[in-house]
Structure formats: C-alpha cells, structure tokens
C-alpha cells in the first residue's frame, strides 16, 4: 500500500454499496428493473425450463434466459466470452465442480451466500462463499429391461468387458459432460486407464451428454449405459420407460453440481434473487421430485422409492485433485474413444 492510488482504489472498492445477500424488496425492485437473468446451466433442458417456470411464477417481471449445454461446453463458452470481454452470463451451473475453482481463481465470481445455503453441510459449500452445491446426482450404470434380463444384468464396470456386451453399450464423453469427466476421474482412480482401453474395444456408442445416454437405453438403441445421470434415470423411470439403475460394485461416482454468480454479471440483482430462489426448499424439493436430483438441503425429503445415498457405495468427487488433470483426461479419453 505504498502507492496512494492503490489506497484510493481500495477505498473505492469498499465504498461500493454491497449488495445484500437476502432477497429484499429493494433487491427485487432493482432486479425487476434489470428485467432478466441469463443462466448458463448443464442440467437437463426440461428440468432447467421447469425451474425457470417456477421462478417466473413468483417473479413474473424477471425473464429467465436459459442457455443449456454440457458442463465442459458451459466452461468453454464462458471462458471464450470472457476472453473476448463479453459479459453475458449472470448465473452458472455446471456439473464439473473444478470449473468453480478455476473461475474463483480468475476472480470472476461474486461472493454471495443465499440464505438457505447457510443450512448446508460445510462439504457442500465454498468456505469463501463463492459457490455452493445447487444439486447433486450420481453417474450411474443402467440397462434396458426389455433387452436384458435382471439376472444377466452387469453388476459393475468390470462385467462390461464380457464379449456379450459388445455393441450394446452407450457412454457419455468427458470432453462435453462434467458428469462424465468427474466420473472418468473417479473411475480411473479405481480401475486405471487399462480398463477404459479394454472397454473401448466393446464397440461403445459414444454420445456427448450424460443426459443423452439414459435416453439412448430408454429408446432401446443400446442395452446398457456405462455412465449417465442418475436423475435422468429417475425421470425415465417416472415416465415408465423400461430401464433400471445399476449401482456398480466398484462404486458410483458422486457428482456435485454447484451454482455461482459472476462478479461482472450484467443483471447483478436479478442474479441474486434468482440464486436465492434456486436454493429455497421449494425449488430444492422440485429438483428432487421432478428433476430426480439429490439435494444438500436438510429440509428436503427424498421419495421413498429411491435408494438413499447412505445405501450406495459412492466414489466421492475431488475437484481440487481433478483440476490439474482435466486436459490430460480429455486428451487420453479422446485418443481412446474418439471425439
């Protein structure tokens, strides 16, 4: 602080009116004046639009623009836009928790703790208040019950190397999907790259999104799903599709999917109203009930027909450990399975 101008700059920062954390009538008024919130999200497009609808029922004057794409695409778009000085995004949700570490390092995020997040366990929120787990799911295996008998269904990842599964498997891509990336990192830790190299010889249908693979087995295009969103499976099961989830004996990757607000958000108030709303028990319950998600909110009840997390062998996510390896994982994976 030897230079006086630095002090002045600092004073300027402090003097900025801090935006409240709670949704106040003044904040809502300011948000309505901004008129909209731009939300980049990796959650399934129909779930995203359901959330938007619920928000607009409560705040009809604030439009929500949903930009849904795979987590890694979300990262690519935001980084490309910020690299070109385009500040379009207000709030972001991605299933690759390491993105939030990166954006935090870049100082792109706004510190904002929605009131409900204060009730979350420490493992589900950033200690500095930049992001918190908005939703969570598992990257599970599954099969089509018309095409595979229950007795013959695979029990775990290693079973998939059996020649009888050749041409019957579908898999998502870690270059596109944060869930697939987090899952690949967890899986490689347990089974090694050898496993994936052998799996690639099974003539796997390579899709992009972990929201796509459940739809592939539901339509009968493939019989067994190597990785896909547990929540899409719940949605398919609710729609009476002939599918069943497998929690692999080796363990099932746990995928935390945080939400954050950008410091340079073009609609800062609307972003905060939106973020606060997204963590309320109402939306968290909606995510669980119709979105098939797991919630970190202590006030949310899980439907009785879903296996509770405590009964599933989980492979925990480790965003900090994964972050330095992301580029390498994508590259190795692409070399094995293609783009």
């Amino acid at each position, binding site marked *: 602080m030897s230079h006086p101008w630095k002090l002045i700059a600092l004073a300027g920062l402090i003097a900025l009116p801090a935006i409240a954390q709670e949704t106040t009538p003044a904040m809502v008024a300011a948000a309505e004046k901004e008129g909209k919130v*731009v939300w*980049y999200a990796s959650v*399934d*497009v*129909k779930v995203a*639009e359901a959330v*938007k*609808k619920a928000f607009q029922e409560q705040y009809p004057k604030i439009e*929500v*623009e*949903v*930009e*849904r*794409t*795979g987590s*890694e*695409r979300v*990262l*690519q*778009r935001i*980084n*490309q*836009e910020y*690299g*070109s*000085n*385009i500040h*379009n*995004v207000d709030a972001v949700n991605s299933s690759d928790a390491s993105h939030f570490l990166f954006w935090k390092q870049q100082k792109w995020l706004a510190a904002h703790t929605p009131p409900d997040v204060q009730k979350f366990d420490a493992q589900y929120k950033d200690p500095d208040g930049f992001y918190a787990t908005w939703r969570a799911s598992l990257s599970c295996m599954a099969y089509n019950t018309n*095409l595979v008998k229950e007795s013959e269904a695979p029990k775990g990842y290693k079973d998939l190397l059996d020649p009888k599964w050749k*041409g*019957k498997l579908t898999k998502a891509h870690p*270059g*596109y999907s944060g869930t697939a990336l987090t899952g690949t990192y967890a899986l490689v830790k347990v089974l090694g790259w050898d496993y994936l190299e052998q799996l690639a010889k099974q003539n796997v*249908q*390579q*899709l*992009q*999104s972990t*929201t*796509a693979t459940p*739809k*592939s087995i*539901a*339509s*009968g*295009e*493939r*019989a067994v799903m190597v990785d896909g969103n547990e929540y899409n499976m719940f949605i398919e099961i609710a*729609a009476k*599709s002939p599918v069943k989830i497998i929690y692999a004996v080796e363990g099932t990757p746990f995928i935390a999917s945080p939400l954050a607000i950008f410091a340079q958000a073009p609609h800062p108030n609307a972003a905060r109203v939106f973020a606060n709303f997204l963590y309320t028990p109402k939306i968290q319950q909606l995510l669980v009930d119709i979105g098939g998600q797991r919630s970190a909110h202590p006030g949310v009840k899980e439907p009785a027909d879903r296996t509770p997390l405590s009964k599933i062998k989980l492979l925990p996510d480790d965003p900090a450990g994964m972050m330095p390896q992301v580029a390498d994982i994508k590259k190795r994976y*692409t*070399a094995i*399975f*293609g*783009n």
Partner: protein
Amino acid sequence: MVLLLAALVLLPLYWLGLTSVSDDAKNLTLAHYRHFLDDPSFIKPFVTTLWTSAAVGIACVLVAAPMAWLVARTDLPLKRTIRVLILASFVTPPFLGAFAWVLLGGPNAGLINQWYYALFGLKPFEAQPLVNIFSAWGMVFVMALYTFPYVFTFIANSLDLIPSELEEASAILGAPPWRAALTVTLPLVLPALLAGFLVAFLQSMTLFGVPAILALPAGIDVMTTKIWSLFQFPPQLGLAAAASLPLLAITVLLLRAQAAIMGRRGYSIIGGKAGGVRLLRLGPWVVPAMALFAIVLLCSIFLPYGVLLRTAFVKNWSAPMAGNLSLEHWRFVFFEFSQTKLALANTFILGITAATAGTILATAVGYLSLRKLVWGHRAIGFLATAPVAIPGIVLAVGLFLSYTRPPLVLYGTLWIIFLAYVTKELPVGYQQVAASLKAVHPELEDASRIFGATRLRALWDITTPLIRNGVIATWLFIFIGSVRELSATILLFTARTKTISVAMFDLRESNDWGPIAVLSITMLAITFVVITIIYTFTDRKPA
C-alpha cells in the same frame, strides 16, 4: 468496392495464414503444420474426409446421371413433380436429413431396423441391423442424399444444351437407344459428370452437421469436426488454422480442375439450345425408371419428413404410435424452451439482413464488373467468386481470428455471423445476378442513353426491370442458405447470438429428438413458405 470486397474476403484468409505459422509469442513457426503431419489424430480424419467425399461424389454421379437422362431424354411421366421433389431435397438442410436418419437408421431403435427385425422375427443386438447409420457409410449415404440434386441439375442442364440429333443419327444407323446413350450421350456429358463429381466432393468435404451427428457417435472424425473440436476450451487456434488450410487448398485445386473440365472447347456441339428434343419412349422400362426415382426420393424426402412428423407428435419416438400421441414437444418448444424465441429471431434477422445486403452487394459487383465500369473490375469479379473456395468452417476460423481482436471486436455480436453469411453466399449471389445481367445486352442501356438518360436512369428504367427476377431469386438463395447455415455458425455463435440450427445441434447432444423434430418441421415450413412466396411473386415455375 475493391477494398470492401478485399476486406470481406481477404482479411479472414490473411489471419488464417498468419495464425497457422505463428506460435503463442507471435514468432514464425511451422510447428502447427508439423504437429498436423505427425499426429495420427489429424491424419486419420483427413484421410476419412477424402475417401468419404470421393464416395459421395461417385454415389451422386451414379444416381443423378440416370435420373437426369431420364428426365431430359425420355417420356418419363410426372416430370414436373419429380423436379419439384428434387428441388425439395436440394433445399433440405443436410443436418436435418441426418437427424431424421438417426431416427430411421439407428441400428437397434431406428424405425427401419425395428420394421426389419419385426418382419423377420429377429431380435435387436442378436441379429445384424439392416442399416447402421452411425458409420462412415451411413454418413456417405446421407450426404449423397442431399448432394445429388447439385449433380442432377448440372447434368440435366448440360443435356438440355446437347441437341438430340446426334442420338437420333445413331438410332437411324440402327443402334438401340441404350447404345446411343452410352456411346453418344455419355461422352458428351462426361465433362458435366466430372464437374458434378467435383461439386459433390466439395460439398461433402465441407459439411459439418452430418459427420457430427452420424460419425462422431461411432468415434469417427472428419476434418470439419476435428477443427470444431480444436475450438473447445482452451482453443488451439494455431492448429485450427493449420488444419483449415489443407481444406482450402483442396477446394481451390478442385475448382480449378472443374473450371478446366467445363471450359474445354472440344465439345463445340454444346452451345445454344437445340431445337426440339425427341423424347425416347420408355415403354415397359418406365417401371424400373420410376422405381429409381421412388427409392431415391423415398430416402431423401418421404421417409425423413415422415419420421420427423411422427417424432414431433409422439412422446417416445421409438415406441409404437398407438397411445403415444402427444403435443408435448410442441408445447415445450413454443411455450417453455427459452431458446426458441431468441434463436428464431436471430435466424430471421440474419437471414433477412444477409440476404438483403448480399443481394445488393452481388448486384453492384455484378453490374460493375460485367459492364467494366470501374478500375479493378476483374479483381472485383474474382473476389466475389473467391469465397466459393472457402469452406464454411474455414471461413469461420478466419473470421473468428479477424474479429476477436481490435480494432473490430465483433465476436459475440450478430455482425460476425452476418459477415460469414454474406461472404459465404456472395459467389452464389454474384453468379445469379451475373447470369441475368449477361442476358441483358448493353445495347439496351446505350439506346436509352442516346435518348439522353443518365446512366443511373438507364439502369433503373431499363436494366432493373429486366433483371428483377434474377435479383429476387438471388435474395431467395441467400436467405435459404443463411437460415440453414450450421458449419460456420457453430464456431461463431455465443449464447446471445444462437441460431435455430445451433439450438438444434445443442439439443442433439442430449438426445432430445422430440424438440429437434418440432424445430426441423418449423425450419422446413419456413423454407417452403419463402420459396412459394418468391415463385408466386416472380411467376417463376420450379425449374
């Protein structure tokens, strides 16, 4: 005018070339090219691109040549309907065809394979599927379905210009019709066949949507998908530029080859339209002839449109229709899906502005260069045709490099996509306008000037009414070309500047086929409405 065109066309190429030989510190280097040559993950897509494009070219010629001959030379019934349907294949965006063929030819759930399994009592997975669209050959098949109309038009036009007297002479000398076709007609249209092959080759080489939809799930890359993947974060711009230039080089070479073939003067017989063409009677051969058209049009139009309609109105696309009917996808697309409104608006804004600007530019360029009115009129004509040699995705790489840096940062706005569309469509527009202008002899203008009219007055009173139809057709071509554009847009869009084609591509990545079908039908409806309006206004009958 020269400067404007040069900025439009040469600036992206300049940055493309420069970036391909620069490292991060802006030093000259050949590292990107060395990487390209050393890395099998580049060579393989390159080879795939070459052989699949060649296969598409051959397939198109094999299918389109007999079709064109039948339409031009025989008493085939329903010719008008057939021409309209081929026009419909022509305006169907290839990536829509690819979407539809996923639903038809997915190896296990695809409807064709479902029928096949049901018909022969087979079980999916146990038996080999009848078609597996997720393969290199599946990609070739779909590309050919939407590329053959180019070749058809080429050959049909060429046949129209060859008088049938020669064939008749051969008939008088006792040769059967098939022999006349093989020994007389075939050699005469050979240049058109070759040119058609090259056009088909170029078309398929530059497609992005079809390989991304059909080949990527099978782990197969082509150059366009490879370049696109280099744009994923962190973008490897140097490599992308180095990977783009071979495509550019191939296009330039092939176009030169095509020009050489078409420009050969050896066939002096081709010139001016001949008198009446005697049509060959098909007799019982009408059955196989019609079968050929039926099969091709079934694959390019009826089956795809049918499956898109079906998918748009059922809950689960692979299940039987009974009890499955639903308007859910329509409700979702038009009342819930956030991107519909924005993407539709963007698509229309871009389509209308690019078509208008492109038509004005093409008309100005055409007039100035053909009437040799300004300095550099040759350069103008050349620059206006040059983008034909720039594949869409390569142009996009160049535009991205040019307009993400000062002084003009256009990335993130509709302007950069607008520039891409105008540049990409300029050659088509220019050729359209030039063709109509060539038909108007300058004498007509001179006559008006002798009577004291200014050049502008002559232009307005004499030339404008005469080329009106050509200009309107140009607008139509550019509009349709812009509305369906995917391969350049895919690198240039941002969340705010998304188009319908990109929104559909995003939905594909999560297998949301219902909404895709709804948007496909919407896009086709827009296209056909525009075509009908234009034909009504200009009183042009479908070719």
